[in-house]
């Protein structure tokens, strides 16, 4: 397909999406994400659906702990090696950098920062969460390998805090993703965050930090809640 044809096709798609807007149901799919046909180098025609070719639309499954001594031992390892995703969502993320400095030093508790969701198993939602960020948080959370844990930092994650009547932030975090540990305060000090980690460790060691399974069990409910607040939903329902 020549470049000219491609341009023509794209403008057609744009016109289509505008037509969709006129219809009663709004469609937020971007032109490059729409279903299309591509001619391969050997002349065959391939159908491409970017949203479902690049991502998985399989629902998460519950992966129950096996129990017994082995699970206890593994839980101990999981508790002693918490890898936190480096994704600051709100003003609370200013409390995270001090944790890697000499004064608070989280490394001695086995807590480290990781740059990619694939390698981390803890997620700090630091403070208020705007609807735009919530979309990214959901995508990131679903890419993390199970078992995964969420620490909610600050009052904003509990009831909205000082942003309780804001048009752009959510009030209750655990309606959208399951939370393991809440750290109250505005802002909580780094010590409080460290205490949160210690609390999370206790939960993991006791085998009570199974919120990833809870998310899988109540997946439809969580998705319905998420879609209620994210109006421009243009991603697959489950995207790891």
């Amino acid at each position, binding site marked *: 397909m020549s470049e000219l044809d491609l341009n023509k096709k794209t403008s057609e798609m744009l016109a289509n999406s505008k037509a969709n807007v006129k219809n009663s149901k709004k469609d937020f799919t971007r032109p490059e994400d729409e279903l299309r046909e591509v001619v391969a180098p050997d002349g065959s025609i391939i159908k491409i659906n970017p949203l479902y070719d690049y991502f998985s639309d399989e629902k998460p499954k519950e*992966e129950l702990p096996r129990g017994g001594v082995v699970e206890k031992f*593994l839980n101990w*390892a*999981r508790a*002693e*090696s918490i890898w936190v995703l480096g994704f600051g969502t709100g003003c609370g993320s200013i409390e995270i950098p001090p944790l890697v*400095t*000499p004064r608070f*030093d989280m*490394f*001695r508790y*086995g807590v*480290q*920062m*990781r*740059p*990619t969701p*694939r*390698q981390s*198993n803890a997620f700090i939602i630091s403070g208020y969460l705007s609807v735009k960020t919530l979309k990214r948080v959901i995508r990131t959370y679903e890419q993390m*390998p*199970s*078992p995964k844990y969420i620490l909610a930092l600050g009052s904003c994650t509990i009831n909205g805090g000082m942003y309780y009547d804001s048009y752009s932030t959510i009030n209750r975090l655990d309606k959208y993703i399951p939370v393991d540990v809440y750290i109250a305060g505005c802002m909580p000090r780094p010590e409080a965050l460290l205490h949160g980690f210690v609390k999370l460790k206790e939960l993991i060691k006791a085998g009570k930090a199974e919120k*990833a399974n809870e998310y899988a069990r109540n997946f439809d409910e969580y998705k319905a809640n998420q879609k209620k607040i994210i109006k421009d939903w243009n991603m697959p329902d489950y995207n*790891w």
Partner: protein
Amino acid sequence: MNIYVKLAYTLLGLLIVINWGMLMGATMRKIGARMAGRHGIPFHQPWINLLKNFSTRTTITHGIMYYLGPVFRLSGGVGLFLFMPMVFTGAVDGPWTNFSFEGDLVLILYFQVFGMLGMALGAGEGGHPYSAMGIARGLAQHAAVELPLTLAIVSIAIQYDTLSIYKIVEAQQGSILNWVLFTNPFAAAAIILAMLGALGHSPFNLVKAPNEILIGPATEYEGTYLGFMMTAGAVIHVMEAVLFMNLVFGGANSWLELIVKSFLIYFWSVFVGMVFPRFKIEQSITWFFKVPFVLGVLAILMYSF
């Protein structure tokens, strides 16, 4: 020596090397932390991390090559180990010389690149753009490291007229002045400088540093795959140090000597890393061509005429 006894010794050696690699890694992170005024991780943290990575419940694969990437990397590390004489005991057939043979130097040079290429193919299949960028940077830097390293190694091979690591170690026995460090100073200097790149610490760690383009080739890897890569990393770090110990610093006569020497060699790269900030990829390549490469050429010229 009976082949089964030899195999048992080799497996035991591999176990020692893996654990020593992890302990060495933890020690260096501890040293780094103390430099910054922190407590740092506990000494047993790498083992816990490994255990945790092997116990994740979900793993996502992107295809066969993605799965084989870490396997290739680990087999590259184990390959380095299998053909490397670890402890010099006076006999080629000794217990800790593994499967070293005439010409193992060439094979070792190949195994150094093997894991890297495997990772390139594997991470490429992951499809993440950051992986591809990490690989491009990694391979570019690795080529710049391999060139002076190979020149220096060829110079040593010409010097002793052998391609066997064991014979190179044998020729350095007797006195500290018999070490390549003193008998072939240009090759030694080229190796000591190129080693910084091979061990991959700061200032040459842009490829895999967590805060540069995420984490380089390993962006998509998780759980068991990452566990494999961590094991491979531990083996490769020790084996690189042992290779340079055998080539330049007279080999080791006992495991204790091996541990002390490999620690000091590894510490050299960590020491440099503590002092110098990270290089950009074009800076590091330029540096490798400016300094170690020229030294390598000098070392070759010295023994060619």
